[in-house]
C-alpha cells in the first residue's frame, strides 16, 4: 500500500489510452482525431481494440491509422463484448496507467495531463473521471441529465472554461463513470480487471470495479478541470436502457447498498459548487442584458407563462427567476433552457447579500408575476434596486389576499364593500395579517410604480381599475402558438361525454362539477363527466357518480389526451373571474361546443366562438345539465321520447340564454 504521494513523473512513463471500437465511423473518427490532435506532456500510447464490429469501413480506417503508426490496433477475430475488449487493452502493458475512452467521446487540449495530475493528487486515488455533457453524476450543465453542449459553446471553449474556473479542484465520487476513466496501475494491480463474466456487453462493469476498489481503500475523483464531450448510446442505441437495467440488477446482487450510496451522493451533490463556478464563468461572458422575474412556486398557468416568456426572451436577454423557497427564503435561478444554476438566500439574514448579488449580476429590469408565499421583505427589493419594472396580473392578489375573489367554498364573492372584505379576512386571515385597506394601499403603490401593468383580458383591466385606477394597464393576451386538436366524433358509449380540462379547485368549479354529476345521476341523464387533471379536494366520483379524474398530466400531452377522450363538449365550471385560462385555448382548438360561465376572461374570449354556450356563473347544476342534454338533440342522439320533450324545452332555454350572453359579452368588451 502506497502511503506517500507520488508525483506523475515518478510513475510509469507511459499511459495507455484504450479505445474499444465496435461501430459508428463518424463518432470514432471524431474521437480518435481529437485524441491525436493534442500532444500531451505525459507520454501516451493510443490502443484501439477493434471488437469485430459490423462496419468494414471503420476497420479499414483503423488499419490505415495503425499502419501509419498513429495507434496500436488490437483486432478481435470475433466479437468478444465491450468488457473483454477493454480488459484486452488493459492487459497489454501491465505496468502502465490506463485511460478508458469511449469511441463516441471527444477530448480537448491537455486533457490527459490534467486528468493525470488529479490522479496523483492523493496517494490512494484509484480512478479519475472528468466532467461531461452526458455522463450521469458527472454531467454538465445539468446533473444526471443527457445534456447537449450549451448553445454557442464549443467543446474547446467549454473545456478551457473548466480548466480555468476549476483549476486543481476535484471531489470524491462513489464510482467512476465509464465514458472516460483514468485508472492508476496500482489500483488495477490490487483490484483486478473488469468482470467480463458478469458484465460482458458493458454498463455497470466500471461501477462494480470501483466498488471493489473502494473496499480496499481507493478513492474515485471527479476531476473538475477537464470536460470531455460524450455523445452516448452509439454502440447499443435503443438497447441501452435494457442493458442499464440488467447491469443494475447484477450490481445489486453483489452490492445491495449500491443504490443507497448513489442516492446519498445525488442528494448531497458535492460537485454542485464546481458546476456553479463554470455556470458563473459563462454567465459573466454573456453580453445579453439581464432581467429578473419574480414569481411564486405554485406552478400552474403563472409558471407556464413565466417559462414561455423567458424562452421567448432567450435570444436577447439573460432571464433570472426569483421565487420563494418558503416563508424565510428565496431562490434565484438562471432561466435559460438546459441550464441549472440557482442560488438560495435565507431571509431576512441574507437580504443584503441578495441585493448585492442582484446588483453584481447587473440586473437591469424587473418583471413581477406574483409574490404570493414570499417573505414581505422582497417587496422592498423593488425600491432598493430602483429599476424599471412590469407587473403582470395572473389573478387578483393585489386587491384581495383571496386572489381568486372567492369565498371559502370557491364561489365568486361578488366583490363586497370594505366591511364585507374585512369580515371575510377575519375568517381567512391575509398573509402578513393586514386588513383589506392596508393591503390595497401597499399594492396600489406597487402597481402605480410599475412601468406597465400587463393584463391578459379587458375584464381584468375593468375589474382592477375599480380599485387601483391610476396604474398603467396594458392588455397583452398570453403568447401561445397556434393549436389544432383533432377529436374523433363522439364518445362510443352512447352517452354525452362532457370534458373538463385542468386541475380542479373549488374556485375552478370542483364542487359545481360534482353537483352536475349528482344531478345527472339522480335524473338518469345520459351524461358522463370526465376531467383531464386532478381534483384538489376529495369529491364523490365513479362508481357513485358519472364523474372521473385522470390525475396530473403534462401540458405537452394535452392535445393527445383530449383527442383520446373523444368528448362531445367541453365544460368550464369555474366559479371565479378567470384572468385568461390556458386550458380554454386547448378547448377552442378542438372546435367542440364549449359551455362556460358568463364571468371573467372566459366569456370575453368566447364572445366570437360560434359553439359557445354561456351560463350564469352561479347557474344551478340542473340548468347546466339541461344545456348538455340539449346537445344530444343536435347530434340526433335522443335516447327516449320523454327526454325529447325535456330536451326541446331546455334547448329553447339555452338558445335564449346564449343570445343574452352574447349581448353581455359585447358590453364587457
Amino acid at each position, binding site marked *: 500500500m502506497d502511503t506517500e504521494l507520488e508525483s506523475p513523473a515518478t510513475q510509469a512513463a507511459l499511459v495507455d489510452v484504450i479505445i474499444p471500437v465496435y461501430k459508428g465511423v463518424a463518432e470514432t473518427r471524431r474521437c480518435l482525431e481529437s485524441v491525436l490532435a493534442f500532444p500531451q506532456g505525459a507520454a501516451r500510447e493510443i490502443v484501439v481494440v477493434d471488437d469485430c464490429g459490423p462496419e468494414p469501413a471503420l476497420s479499414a480506417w483503423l488499419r490505415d491509422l495503425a499502419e501509419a503508426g498513429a495507434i496500436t490496433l488490437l483486432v478481435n477475430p470475433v466479437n468478444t463484448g465491450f468488457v473483454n475488449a477493454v480488459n484486452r487493452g488493459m492487459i497489454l502493458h501491465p505496468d502502465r496507467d490506463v485511460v478508458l475512452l469511449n469511441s463516441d467521446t471527444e477530448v480537448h487540449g491537455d486533457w490527459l495531463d490534467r486528468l493525470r495530475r488529479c490522479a496523483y493528487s*492523493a496517494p490512494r486515488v484509484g480512478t479519475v473521471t472528468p466532467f461531461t455533457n452526458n455522463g450521469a453524476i458527472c454531467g454538465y450543465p445539468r446533473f444526471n441529465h443527457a445534456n447537449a453542449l450549451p448553445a454557442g459553446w464549443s467543446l474547446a471553449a467549454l473545456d478551457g472554461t473548466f480548466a480555468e474556473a476549476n483549476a486543481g479542484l476535484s471531489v470524491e465520487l462513489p464510482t467512476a463513470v465509464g465514458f472516460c476513466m483514468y485508472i492508476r496501475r496500482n489500483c488495477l494491480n490490487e483490484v483486478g480487471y473488469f468482470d467480463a463474466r458478469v458484465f460482458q456487453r458493458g454498463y455497470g462493469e466500471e461501477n462494480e470495479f470501483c466498488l471493489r476498489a473502494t473496499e480496499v481503500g481507493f478513492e474515485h475523483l471527479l476531476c473538475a478541470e477537464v470536460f470531455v464531450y460524450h455523445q452516448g448510446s452509439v454502440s447499443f442505441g435503443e438497447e441501452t436502457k435494457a442493458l442499464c437495467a440488467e447491469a443494475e440488477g447484477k450490481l445489486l446482487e453483489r452490492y445491495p447498498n449500491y443504490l443507497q450510496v448513489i442516492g446519498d451522493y445525488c442528494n448531497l*451533490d458535492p460537485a454542485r459548487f464546481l458546476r456553479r463556478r463554470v455556470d458563473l464563468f459563462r454567465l*459573466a*461572458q454573456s453580453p445579453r442584458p439581464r432581467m429578473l422575474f419574480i414569481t411564486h412556486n405554485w406552478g400552474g398557468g403563472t409558471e407556464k407563462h413565466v417559462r414561455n416568456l423567458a424562452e421567448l426572451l432567450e435570444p*436577447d436577454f439573460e432571464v433570472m427567476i426569483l421565487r420563494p423557497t418558503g416563508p424565510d427564503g428565496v431562490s434565484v435561478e438562471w432561466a435559460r433552457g438546459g441550464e441549472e444554476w440557482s442560488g438560495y438566500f435565507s431571509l431576512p439574514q441574507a437580504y443584503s447579500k441578495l441585493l448585492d448579488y442582484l446588483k453584481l449580476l447587473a440586473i*437591469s429590469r424587473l418583471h413581477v408575476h406574483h409574490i404570493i408565499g414570499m417573505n414581505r421583505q422582497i417587496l422592498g427589493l423593488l425600491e432598493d434596486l430602483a429599476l424599471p419594472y412590469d407587473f403582470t396580473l395572473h389573478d387578483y392578489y393585489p386587491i384581495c389576499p383571496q386572489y381568486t375573489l372567492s369565498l371559502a367554498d370557491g364561489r365568486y364573492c361578488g366583490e363586497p364593500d370594505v366591511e364585507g372584505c374585512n369580515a371575510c379576512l377575519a375568517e381567512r386571515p391575509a398573509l402578513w395579517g393586514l386588513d383589506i385597506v392596508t393591503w390595497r394601499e401597499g399594492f396600489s403603490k406597487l402597481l402605480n410604480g410599475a412601468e406597465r401593468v400587463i393584463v391578459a383580458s379587458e375584464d381584468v383591466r375593468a375589474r382592477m381599475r375599480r380599485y387601483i385606477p391610476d396604474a398603467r394597464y396594458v392588455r397583452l393576451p398570453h*403568447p401561445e*402558438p397556434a393549436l389544432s386538436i383533432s377529436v374523433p366524433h363522439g364518445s362510443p358509449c352512447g352517452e354525452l361525454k362532457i370534458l373538463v380540462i385542468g386541475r380542479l379547485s373549488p374556485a375552478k368549479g370542483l364542487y359545481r362539477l360534482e353537483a352536475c354529476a349528482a344531478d345527472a345521476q339522480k335524473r338518469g341523464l345520459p351524461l358522463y363527466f370526465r376531467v383531464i387533471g386532478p381534483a384538489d379536494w376529495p369529491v364523490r366520483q365513479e362508481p357513485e357518480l358519472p364523474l372521473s379524474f385522470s390525475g396530473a398530466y403534462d401540458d405537452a400531452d394535452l392535445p393527445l389526451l383530449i383527442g383520446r377522450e373523444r368528448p362531445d363538449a367541453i365544460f368550464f365550471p369555474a366559479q371565479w373571474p378567470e384572468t385568461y385560462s390556458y386550458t380554454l385555448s386547448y378547448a377552442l382548438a378542438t372546435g367542440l361546443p364549449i359551455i362556460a360561465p358568463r364571468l371573467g376572461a372566459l366569456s370575453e374570449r368566447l364572445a366570437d366562438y360560434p359553439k359557445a354556450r354561456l351560463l350564469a356563473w352561479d347557474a344551478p347544476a340542473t340548468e347546466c345539465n339541461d344545456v348538455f342534454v340539449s346537445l344530444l338533440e343536435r347530434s340526433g342522439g335522443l335516447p327516449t321520447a320523454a327526454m325529447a320533450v325535456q330536451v326541446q324545452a331546455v334547448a329553447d332555454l339555452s338558445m335564449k340564454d346564449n343570445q343574452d350572453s352574447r349581448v353581455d359579452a359585447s358590453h364587457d368588451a
Partner: protein
Amino acid sequence: MTPERYLSQYAEPLRRIEKPTPVAWQALVLEPDYYYPPSIELGAHLDGLKRSELLEILQQILATEYPRQRFSKRTARTFLEALQQLRDERAWRRAEMERLTATSAHHQAENDRMTAELSQYRAEVQRLFEELERVRSQAAVLGSEAATLRANLTELYGSSSWKVTKPLRWFGRLGRAARAG
C-alpha cells in the same frame, strides 16, 4: 396572441436596455452553501467532504477552540463517543427505514393478493350473471312452449270431436272404475 406578436409588443420598452458592464466571474461566485436549498442540512455537507478536508477542518477547530491546551485523549474520546452515537443513530434509522420498506412491501403484496382475489370474485360474479341469464332465457323458452301447449289443449277441448266423444270417455272411465272396484 402569437408569440411573435406578443414579443414585439412586450419587448418595446426593453430596447432601451444597454448591455451589461463586464464583471469578473470570480465576483459572482458564492460560498458553496448558497447553492443548496434549505432542505439540505448544512451538516450533511460534511458527508460530502474528503477525509483530508475533514482532517483540515478538525485541525482548524483545534487551533481556534483549544489554542492553549492540548487535545487530550479524554476530549478525543468524547468526540469519538458522540460520533459513534451519531453513527448508531444513523444505523438505527437505516434499519428502521428497511423495516418500514419491508412493511410497505408486505402491505403491497397483501394489496396485490386482495386485488387478485377481487378479480376472481368479479369473474365469479360475471360467471353467475351469465348463468342467471342463461337460466332466464331457458325459462323464457320453456314458458313459451308451455303457452303453446296450453293453447293446443284449449283448442282440443273446444273441438266438436272432443265433445262428440265425451260419452265414450265417460263410459270408459265407468268401466275402469268397475274393474278396479
